[in-house]
């Protein structure tokens, strides 16, 4: 667990980057720090591994005051990923990943073996290890950056806008990978972003900062979306925050019935009973069948796009299990909001 107590950071030029911050970041969870530029989120992150020293207050990692520890040793025990990957251009990918193990004196062979393992963990082919960073795409470089941070198996991972510089498609992939990794590894992750959608996707808790280094609200994503503390948070979450909340809920609980027979529109299936499209006379409208794990938001979207207002539901193999109506989906969407308001 990471604990900030009355932490204050003033830079020599007089600007206050972080104002009287008291915050707990739970063990094994992802805490996302969000806010617009200059709100102190990156400074907050960098105070954890002493890349920035606080003016006053204490920061504890695993109960130990970071100020009482040797800065270099502290940093070796904390994974650190930055936006432009910061890979060493003169070292191979494998040696980049092996950086911290080598600093810890593991010996070259053991460090390289571990590095090769991590390449696989972050989803890169083994031959990538012999390449140099400039030979990789931006997304691959970020994966190497994550692998380097994980190399010595640190309990804490600091990520400073790690996916900020890659295109949206790759960004979504990297987010998925991080969620998968986190399921396996259960690190205590502190993640800085200015992208609220990324925060909602990744965060177990989201801390919203306002310019001047004030923490405005720290809450789980659904609570934040349902009950923003003030207008600033509500504005920051955006006009679609109601819909964002639905992205956190699945449609598993929405009831489903048999597909309609004999209406204007027919749901056409292939021989394995997988939905193909809606058909009426000579019109065909594509259908995007949803699994139980898909979000209420995508169900809502699909129900609006469907000519019948019905959403095709499938199992893991894509075989039709039934359909859900627009009304049922709406009702559950409303319930999700009610629950979020009441809970927590």
């Amino acid at each position, binding site marked *: 667990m990471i604990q900030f107590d009355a932490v204050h950071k003033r830079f020599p030029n007089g600007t206050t980057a972080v104002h009287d911050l008291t915050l707990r970041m739970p063990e094994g969870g992802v805490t996302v720090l969000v806010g617009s530029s200059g709100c102190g989120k990156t400074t907050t992150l960098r105070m954890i591994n002493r890349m920035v020293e606080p003016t006053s207050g204490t920061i504890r990692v695993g109960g130990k005051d970071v100020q009482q520890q040797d800065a270099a040793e502290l940093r070796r025990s904390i994974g650190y990923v930055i936006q432009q990957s910061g890979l060493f251009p003169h070292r191979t990918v494998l040696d980049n990943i092996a950086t*911290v193990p080598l600093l810890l004196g593991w010996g070259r062979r053991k460090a390289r073996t571990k590095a090769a393992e991590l390449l696989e963990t972050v989803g890169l082919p083994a031959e990538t290890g012999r390449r140099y960073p400039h030979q990789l795409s931006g997304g691959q470089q970020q994966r190497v950056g994550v692998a380097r941070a994980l190399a010595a198996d640190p309990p804490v991972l600091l990520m400073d806008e790690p996916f900020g510089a890659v295109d949206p498609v790759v960004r979504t992939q990297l987010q998925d990978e991080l969620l998968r990794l986190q399921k396996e590894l259960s690190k205590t992750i502190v993640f800085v972003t200015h992208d609220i959608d990324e925060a909602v996707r990744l965060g177990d808790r989201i801390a919203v900062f306002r310019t001047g280094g004030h923490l405005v609200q720290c809450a789980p994503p659904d609570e934040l979306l349902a009950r923003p503390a003030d207008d600033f948070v509500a504005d920051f979450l955006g006009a679609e925050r109601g819909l964002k909340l639905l992205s956190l809920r699945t449609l598993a609980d929405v009831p489903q019935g048999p597909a309609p027979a004999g209406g204007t529109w027919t749901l056409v299936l292939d021989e394995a009973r997988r939905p193909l499209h809606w058909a009426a006379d000579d019109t065909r409208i594509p259908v995007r069948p949803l699994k139980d794990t898909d979000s209420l938001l995508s169900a809502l979207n699909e129900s609006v796009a469907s000519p019948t207002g019905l959403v095709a539901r499938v199992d893991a193999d894509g075989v039709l299990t039934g359909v859900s109506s627009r009304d049922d989906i709406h009702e559950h969407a409303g319930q999700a909001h009610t629950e979020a308001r009441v809970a927590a």
Partner: protein
Amino acid sequence: MFELFKNLGEWLVSGEQWTGPDGIAHRLAEHLQYSLLATLIAAAIGLPLGLLIGHTGKGAFLAINLASFGRALPTVGLVVLVFLASGLSMTPVYVALVALAVPAIVTNTYAGMTAVDPDVKDAARGQGMRGHQVLFRVELPLALPLIMTGLRLALIQVVATATIAAYVSFGGLGRYVFDGLAQRDLVQVLGGAVLVALVAVALDLALSGLQRLLFLPHSRLRSSGGTPTRTA
């Protein structure tokens, strides 16, 4: 004109011109000795200074002013000045040559250090490298091509200027230039000058070849952006 070049050619290749204490081989060895020793001393002073300024970011004004200082320094004047102060010895020559070479080394080393991507340095610190580890494992290797360029520039300048050793009655290829001038022997003057130029070009080619050999496989990986700074 043709006669002059013919005589020059004969002077350069004649056997007796190459042997003996006043022969080209001996003068060449002296010239190389002065040049290499002066560059070595300059590197011993300039490299640590440039690395320190680049690593700490403190004293950048020193590096920049050294460049203009080096450009403005009258080498012969310096030789005479130290000569007057210290009397007859090689000291004035080495002082002048070292003073000439240090700015080129410091400014290029500094330029190489500042060209290292700040994100890379930040990441190095963030992974838990100590100051000296960041310097020797990250900054120095990345700055090395520009550092080498500085050393090369310094050596070439020193080779060209080491002729002044003869000015204060020492050896080296400058002997021919100054003796030739005194004896109104144009062939000898030209011969000395051509030899100095040939040595400078040969050393430059050799060093750039070595540099390419050492860094070509990586050259595109290194952080670029810094251009070598000439001081003369």
